[in-house]
């Protein structure tokens, strides 16, 4: 599946965008989580299923896809036109201490102001982990 490789390139360039927005910690986490975990999971599932062409099924006919493309272009214009018309100011200068976006500044917020959401994320991940295990298991009850 070539799409997984292109998704990898996409994710790496998103990390570059984060770096250009002076969020180095986020760029590192992005590379770790997306290319390190999510994409590996995708590639693993693609290899595990080992799909043949006839199992993939037909894609929509070209007319339907053009319609969807038109709708999404309309969606993009709907978002983009107000952004253009807002005449947003350029980026303000960074503070002198160079802490913006560092592990220190993000971690400070994460453990003080957003402590409760941070802990709740662990609950979410535990639930997702058990859910994935239960869903992917071959037989839940009885002899395997």
């Amino acid at each position, binding site marked *: *599946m070539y*799409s*997984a490789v292109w998704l990898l390139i*996409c994710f790496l360039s*998103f990390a570059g*965008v*984060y770096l250009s*927005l002076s*969020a180095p*910690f*986020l760029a590192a986490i*992005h590379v770790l*989580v*997306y290319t390190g975990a*999510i994409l590996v*999971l*995708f590639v693993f*599932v*693609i290899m*595990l*299923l080992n*799909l043949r062409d006839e*199992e*993939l*099924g*037909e*894609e*929509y006919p070209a007319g*339907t*896809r053009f319609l*969807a493309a038109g709708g*999404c272009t309309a*969606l*993009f214009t709907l*978002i*983009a036109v107000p*952004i253009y018309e*807002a005449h*947003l*100011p350029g*980026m*303000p200068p960074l*503070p002198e201490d160079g802490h*913006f976006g560092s592990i220190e*500044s993000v971690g400070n*917020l*994460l453990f003080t*102001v*957003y402590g409760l*959401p941070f802990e709740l*994320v662990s609950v*979410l*991940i535990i639930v*997702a*982990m058990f*859910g*994935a295990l239960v*869903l*992917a298991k*071959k037989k839940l009850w009885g002899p395997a």
Partner: protein
Amino acid sequence: MTEYLLLSAAIFAIGAYGVIARRNLLIVLMSLELMLNGVNIALVAFSRGRVDADPTGQVFVLMVMAVAAAEVAVGLAIVIALFRTRRTLDTNDLHQLNG
């Protein structure tokens, strides 16, 4: 600022196209990731655009990433379970819940 928001909107629209127009369940999940990433870029751009240099937006992005990771784990588990029982990943063949 404008460029980053336009990039974010474009990525969101491309992801939406993938979700709507493709029928392969794996591609739909990948496009969902793309949509989440588009929103993340907007959040980081707004966080950078603040005059008081408050990285709260980056904390939000971390939360979104955690939710995306959980979503993709459960989604791929569903894909595996579906493929095991139905031998297909075509979203139009999976209409048992249509009622």
